[in-house]
C-alpha cells in the first residue's frame, strides 16, 4: 500500500528500519534536494541575502546539497523517524548556528566562487587543505613539505593529498561548487590576460574568505608571534596546527614563508599567485622567479611552470 504512495507522502510517514530509510532516501533524492534548497532560499530571503539570479540559485543548491548529504548519513542513526521532519530539523539546526554560512556579495563573482569552493572544501578535506598552498601561492608538494617542516611520514601524506586532489578532488569540488567548464575557462583566460588584476582580486578577497572559514579551526589555534613560530619549527611540534593555520591565514603564511624562505625557495618573497587547475603529475614549480618581491603572474607563469611529465 505504501509503495503506491508518492515519495513526498512517504517521506512524511514513519520509517522504521535503516534499510527502509536507505531505500526511500535513494529514491527521493530530488525531492529532498529541492526541499533543502527551498528552505535555504527562504533563509537567504528572510536574511536579505537573496538576489534573483543564477548565482544565488546555485548557491542555494550547493548549500541544499550539503544539508542533504549530512541528512543521508545522519538519518540512518535516527531511525525510526519521519524523513521530512528529520530533514527540516537538521536544516533548522544548521541555520540556527551563529553565522552559519559564508555569504558575501563579492564571493559571488567567478573568482569569488572559485575561492569560496576551495576554502569550503578545505574545511572538510585535507587534500583540499594542502592544495590551497598551490592554488593560492603556487606551492608544489615539495615546497609545502619544506614550508611546513615535515618529516618522511608526513611528506608521504602530502604527496598523497596532491595525488588524490589531482585525480578527483579538484573536479568534484568544481562540480559541487557549480563552476562549469565555461566559468573555469573564463577564469583561465583572465589569468592569462590580466594576471596582476586577478591576483590583486584574490589578495583582496582572501581575508574575507579566511576570516569565515578559519572558524573551523579549534579555538586554541590563534595567530602566533614570529618568535613562537620559530620555536614551533625548532622544537618540531604542532604539525596539524601548521597545516591548518597557515593554509587559512594569509598573514601568518607570508610571515612563516618569509622566515623559512631559505628552505622553501630561492630566497624570494612569497606572494599570492593564483592557480586554477591542480598541479599536474610531476609538475615542478620554480617559485618566486624573477626579482625579489616582484609580481610575476600570467604570461610569465608559463615560463616558470615546467612539467617533467604530463
Amino acid at each position, binding site marked *: 500500500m505504501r509503495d503506491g504512495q508518492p515519495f513526498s507522502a512517504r517521506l512524511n510517514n514513519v520509517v522504521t528500519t535503516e534499510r527502509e530509510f536507505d531505500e526511500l532516501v535513494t529514491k527521493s533524492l530530488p525531492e529532498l534536494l529541492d526541499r533543502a534548497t527551498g528552505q535555504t532560499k527562504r533563509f537567504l530571503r528572510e536574511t536579505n541575502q537573496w538576489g534573483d539570479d*543564477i548565482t544565488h540559485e546555485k548557491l542555494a543548491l550547493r548549500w541544499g546539497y550539503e544539508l542533504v*548529504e549530512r541528512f543521508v548519513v545522519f538519518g540512518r542513526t535516527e531511525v525510526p523517524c519521519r524523513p521530512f521532519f528529520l530533514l527540516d530539523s537538521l536544516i533548522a539546526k544548521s541555520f540556527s548556528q551563529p553565522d552559519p554560512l559564508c555569504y558575501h556579495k563579492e564571493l559571488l563573482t567567478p573568482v569569488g566562487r572559485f575561492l569560496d569552493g576551495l576554502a569550503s572544501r578545505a574545511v*572538510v578535506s*585535507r*587534500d583540499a587543505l594542502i592544495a590551497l598552498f598551490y592554488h593560492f601561492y603556487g606551492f608544489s608538494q615539495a615546497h609545502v613539505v619544506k614550508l611546513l617542516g615535515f618529516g618522511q611520514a608526513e611528506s608521504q601524506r602530502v604527496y598523497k593529498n596532491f595525488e*588524490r586532489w589531482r585525480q578527483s578532488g579538484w573536479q568534484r569540488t568544481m562540480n559541487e561548487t557549480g563552476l562549469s567548464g565555461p566559468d573555469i575557462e573564463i577564469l583561465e583566460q583572465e589569468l592569462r590576460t590580466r594576471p596582476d588584476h586577478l591576483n590583486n582580486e584574490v589578495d583582496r578577497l582572501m581575508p574575507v574568505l579566511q576570516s569565515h572559514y578559519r572558524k573551523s579551526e579549534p579555538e586554541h589555534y590563534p595567530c602566533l608571534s614570529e618568535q613562537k613560530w620559530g620555536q614551533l619549527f625548532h622544537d618540531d611540534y604542532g604539525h596539524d596546527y601548521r597545516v591548518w593555520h597557515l593554509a587559512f591565514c594569509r598573514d601568518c603564511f607570508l610571515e612563516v614563508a618569509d622566515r623559512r624562505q631559505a628552505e622553501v625557495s630561492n630566497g624570494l618573497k612569497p606572494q599570492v599567485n593564483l592557480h586554477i587547475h591542480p598541479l599536474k603529475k610531476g609538475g615542478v614549480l620554480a617559485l618566486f622567479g624573477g626579482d625579489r618581491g616582484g609580481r610575476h603572474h600570467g604570461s610569465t607563469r608559463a615560463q616558470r611552470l615546467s612539467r617533467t611529465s604530463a
Partner: protein
Amino acid sequence: MEVPELNDYRAHLLDALDDQPRRAAEERPGFLQVLVNHERIGTLNCAQTDPSFAYTARERSIQHLELRSESGVLIGGCVAPEAGQKSVRITVGNGNLTLHVQNHFDGGSLRVNYEVAPGWWSHLATAIGLPARAAVASTQGTTVWAMTTAFAQIVLAVGVVALLAERLPAWVGSEDRAHQLEEELAARQSTQDQIDKVHQQLAQLVESQTAAVAVSRAEQDRMAQLNTLIDTVAHTQQRLATQVVAVQEDLKTVKTDVAQEVQTGMRVAVNAVEADRELVRQDLQAVKSVNETLVKQVAVLESRNRELHARLALTSLEVAKANASSKPVVVAKNDPPKETPAPTVVPVSDNLREADRQAFMFWVAFQDGTTEKSIEDLVQELNGIKKGPMKSGWYSVEVNLPNPEPPDRFLESVKRAKIVKSVVTSKAMPPAQ
C-alpha cells in the same frame, strides 16, 4: 540559457548524492577527520594500535558529529541531543567505528573507537580450539602478541603434519608386520610424546595468552578508569569555572546593589534635608509675614491709641474749659467756694499736657535724590530729632507734638512736604519695602 545550466548543476549534485554511499563504502580507514559542530577538532588514525579519539567540548554541547576521510568523504556521523547521550556504530571498511557522545547543556564529551575486524589468525586460533573470546580479545588488545601466538601454533601444526607424513609411507609399505608394529608403536610413542609436548607447549601458550589477555584487560580497565577520572576532573573543573563565574557575577550584583542602595539612601537623605530646609524657609517667611502684619497692626493700634489719647485730651480740655466758664457763675451764686474741685481738674490737664508732650516717633521715606540738608531742614522744621541711622531708605524721626493735634493730621502735614515720599508710624522697626 540559465535554466539548462542550473539543471545541469542540479543533476551533478544529485549524482554526487547518489554516489555518496558508494564512495563512503570504498574508503579505507586511515586518517579520519573528526568534525564537531562543523569544526574540525582532530584526527583519528585507524592504523594505530587500539585507535581511539576523545574530545571534551566546553560551553557548547556536541550537536553535530561528522567523520570524514582525508579526501573529505563523509563516512559517518550523528546528531546528538543537547543534553543526554547518543551511541552510534558505523561500519568502515573491514572495521567498525563506535561513536559515543555525552552531552550536558554547557558542553559535552565525545569518544570515537575504531575496532579492526578480526584477522585470519583469529579465525585460525578459533579453529584450533582457542576460546573465541580470547581470540577476539587478543585481536582487540595485543595484535602483535596474537600474531606471534598464531605463528607458533602454525609452526607446531606443520611439524606434526610433517612427522605424520614421514611415518605414513613406512606404515603402508612394511614387510615385517611385527617389526612394523614395533616401529609403529615406537613411532606412535614418539609421536604421542611429541603431541604431548605440543599439548604442553600449547597449554603454556594458552596460559601465557590468557595472562597477556588478563594484563591487556587490566590495562584497558585502568585506561577506562583513567578516562573516567579525566572526564570527572574535566567536569569538576568546568563546574568550578561555572561556579567561579557565578560567584563573580553575584559579587558584581551585590556591589551594584550596595552602590545603588547607598546612592538611593544619599538621595533620600539629601531630598529630606532639602525638604526640611524648604519647610524652614517657608516657616520663616510665614513668621516674617506674620511679624510684619503684627507690626502693622501694632502701628495702627498705636496710632489709634494716640488718636484716642488726643481726643481724650481735647475732651478733657473742653470739659475743663466748660468747668472754668461755669465756675464763676457758681461762685457768684454761692458762698466763697471751697477749694475742692480745682485740684481735680488741674492735675488732669497737667497730665494731658504731659501726654501731649510725649515723644511721637514715626518713619519717613524721602524722594530719590533728596539731599541730607533738605532732610535736616525738614526735621528742624518739625522740631524733630533723627533717631538712629537710615534703614532701607527709612528715617526714624521723633517729634514733640506742639499742641494737642492728632498725629494723623500731623502726619498728613508731613506727607504734604515735597521731599517726603511716605510716612508710617511703626516704632519698632522700619517698614518693609
